[in-house]
């Protein structure tokens, strides 16, 4: 049995803020992080020699530095488990951690758990999205932060949402501006009739400053920001990829590139996670973007709020009203942004891969005759059975099913009982599992 009070999974902004707040409240925590360093995708540090200038609003930089400083100051009450992956909860309610640094699975029975595993990027199933060379915008951005180098060769960004603007500006500032940003929605046009949403976004001064910073860079680098355009297909070519794009008016255009980054928004992420729950034995809380996608600033507030909820569960008195208000403001801003970036519904073509892990296309779905529920689609069609456990296909499958008159929540694709392991685990690591005594790690 572990001696620490709280298990926190994920060392991004929400998880870090949670352990800092727990420490401030006098509670100890174990912090599980899949990478070798804290910060999450958003605060990924440059590896290797030299410095890397990332185009970033000053407010983001200050917030990051403050969080990392307070984490450093809280370390006497935090036990970090780095290069360790949360793989699930077993039937005895043990939280299982694959400690890849030690090569063994460990278990924890905490009094409270804060899950802060971050968001899942949404990518609509266009033809060719599964090809090597096609990445998510977040995937391209996190690798760029780590290496300090923009991808070599021609780059095209497509999809929808503010992240495309940020990435385009960052690539441009690093010397490799993308050929274009293809935005499915019409955020500039809809601003005329979505005056309320515009006002709501304008009320958030940091968002305005951030947009201006990126717009200035795109203007300087002459990167075309094309709204109402979408990618129809990506095809492999002799040297890279050929992208077929079309405008809502029917005009089409072709791009020859080496890299395509796609992004269709961010989704909360509860795939395979134990649900939020409170019992005498244990409190489970979700925090940050995995609970609701509100951005890094709000994730910090949400991590602190989760820590305070845990403290109350453990008998302390504290009040989260100020944090609740800040989160409500962030929610209003995100809702307004979602309104401005609202795009027409998307229907995958017959040849488009819907479930990548299992290599299943829209036509495979159409041929499923007997599947009348999420459960049957999984069992008879193998949809959502793959290694991503439906994180990338469940929403699309739910949409396709809806068109056939079958309604189910995307989460239902996973079944009622979370399946573990959530991630690949080496049999040697499972074999090395030993029931822990105190906080001693297993023998490597």
């Amino acid at each position, binding site marked *: 049995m572990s001696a620490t009070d709280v298990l926190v999974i994920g060392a991004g902004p929400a998880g870090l803020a949670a352990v800092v707040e727990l420490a401030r409240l006098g509670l100890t925590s174990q912090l599980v992080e899949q990478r070798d360093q804290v910060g999450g995708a958003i605060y990924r540090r440059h590896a290797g020699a030299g410095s890397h200038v990332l185009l970033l609003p000053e407010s983001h930089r200050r917030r990051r530095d403050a969080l990392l400083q307070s984490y450093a100051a809280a370390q006497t009450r935090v036990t970090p488990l780095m290069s360790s992956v949360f793989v699930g909860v077993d039937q005895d309610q043990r939280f299982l951690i694959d400690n890849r640094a030690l090569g063994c699975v460990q278990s924890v029975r905490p009094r409270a758990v804060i899950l802060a595993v971050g968001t899942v990027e949404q990518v609509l199933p266009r033809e060719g999205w599964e090809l090597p060379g096609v990445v998510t915008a977040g995937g391209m951005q996190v690798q760029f932060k780590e290496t300090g180098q923009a991808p*070599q060769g021609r780059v095209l960004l497509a999809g929808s949402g503010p992240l495309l603007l940020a990435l385009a500006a960052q690539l441009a500032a690093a010397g490799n501006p993308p050929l274009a940003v293809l935005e499915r929605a019409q955020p500039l046009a809809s601003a005329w009739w979505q005056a309320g949403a515009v006002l709501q976004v304008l009320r958030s001064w940091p968002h305005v400053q951030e947009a201006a910073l990126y717009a200035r860079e795109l203007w300087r680098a002459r990167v075309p920001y094309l709204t109402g355009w979408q990618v129809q297909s990506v095809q492999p070519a002799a040297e890279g990829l050929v992208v077929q794009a079309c405008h809502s008016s029917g005009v089409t255009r072709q791009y020859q590139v080496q890299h395509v980054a796609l992004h269709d928004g961010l989704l909360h992420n509860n795939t395979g996670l134990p649900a939020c729950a409170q019992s005498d034995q244990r409190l489970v809380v979700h925090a940050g973007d995995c609970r609701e996608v509100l951005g890094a600033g709000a994730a910090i507030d949400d991590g602190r709020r989760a820590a305070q909820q845990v403290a109350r569960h453990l008998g302390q008195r504290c009040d989260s009203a100020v944090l609740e208000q800040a989160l409500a403001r962030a929610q209003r801003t995100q809702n307004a942004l979602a309104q401005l970036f609202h795009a027409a519904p998307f229907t995958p073509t017959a040849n488009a891969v819907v479930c*990548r892990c299992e290599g299943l296309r829209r036509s495979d779905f159409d041929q499923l005759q007997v599947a009348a529920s999420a459960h049957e689609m999984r069992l008879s069609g193998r949809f959502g059975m793959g290694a991503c456990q439906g994180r990338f296909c469940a929403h699309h499958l739910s949409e396709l099913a809806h068109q056939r008159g079958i309604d189910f929540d995307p989460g239902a694709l996973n079944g009622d009982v979370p399946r573990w392991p959530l991630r690949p685990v080496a049999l040697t690591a499972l074999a090395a599992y030993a029931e822990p005594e105190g906080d001693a790690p297993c023998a490597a």
Partner: protein
Amino acid sequence: MPDTESSVLYWGSDPVRFSPGETIAAALQRHGVTDLGAGVGELHGRYFCGIGTCQACLVSVSGASAVEACLTLAQAGMRLSPALLPGHPDAPGAGA
């Protein structure tokens, strides 16, 4: 980047240089390796989400069980191969 044996790993027999502290995925990307080998349903492995969620970048290190290239730190002398080794039921060419 120091050009020494201490910062080289291998994709098959192909030497790939890396900077200490970066992931396998970052090293392969710089080296121009985007196709991480044939996988299920005639699709190919590739770097995609960068945060371990999509599981599309699984590779095998020294023939061991699969790990996410986007999470695993590059280390000198690593021998990398596609996650689905020949003989695996889902690997291309395997008997049905």
